[in-house]
């Protein structure tokens, strides 16, 4: 079962890296009417999605930390 998790992580990591690299580094040089552009959302999302995920992740991290600290100080 560990192997399945490992394979999934590997696949997701590779896909995200390849897709995001093309999205941010290659697409800006591609003409507006090229069919490849239809595979990628507008550039705005290339910044909005990672920033949102980062903000949500850090919020969750600090939220978890504060919950743990509150619980341990209540004892």
């Amino acid at each position: 079962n560990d192997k399945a998790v490992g394979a999934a992580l590997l696949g997701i990591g590779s896909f995200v890296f390849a897709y995001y690299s093309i999205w941010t580094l290659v697409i800006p040089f591609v003409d507006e009417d090229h069919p490849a552009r239809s595979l990628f959302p507008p550039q705005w999302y290339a910044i909005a999605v990672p920033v949102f995920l980062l903000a949500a992740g850090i919020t969750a991290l600090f939220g978890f930390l504060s919950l743990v600290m509150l619980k341990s100080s209540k004892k």
Partner: protein
Amino acid sequence: MTRAHRIATTFTIAAVTWLLGLFGLFPLSETIQSQIWPVLPLFFIVALGSYAFINVGYNLLVFRECPEAFHELMQEIQEAKHDLRAKGVDVA
């Protein structure tokens, strides 16, 4: 120079380089200056995250179980418990 010093130095140099490029002090083409350069730090964060995923995933995939070592270890644990019990030590 400690590892932390090296990381901090590399980071500072990269940050200053990026900020200089942001203010137009490098001769960059129009597309690069407006669309690619500002996004570079975010790109590196995403790249770092996906590198971590790939690393963990790959190592999970190729890690070998070694069942022989596992059985040998369980055997040794049994023997050690036996010996200690014989000597009067209270073991599980």
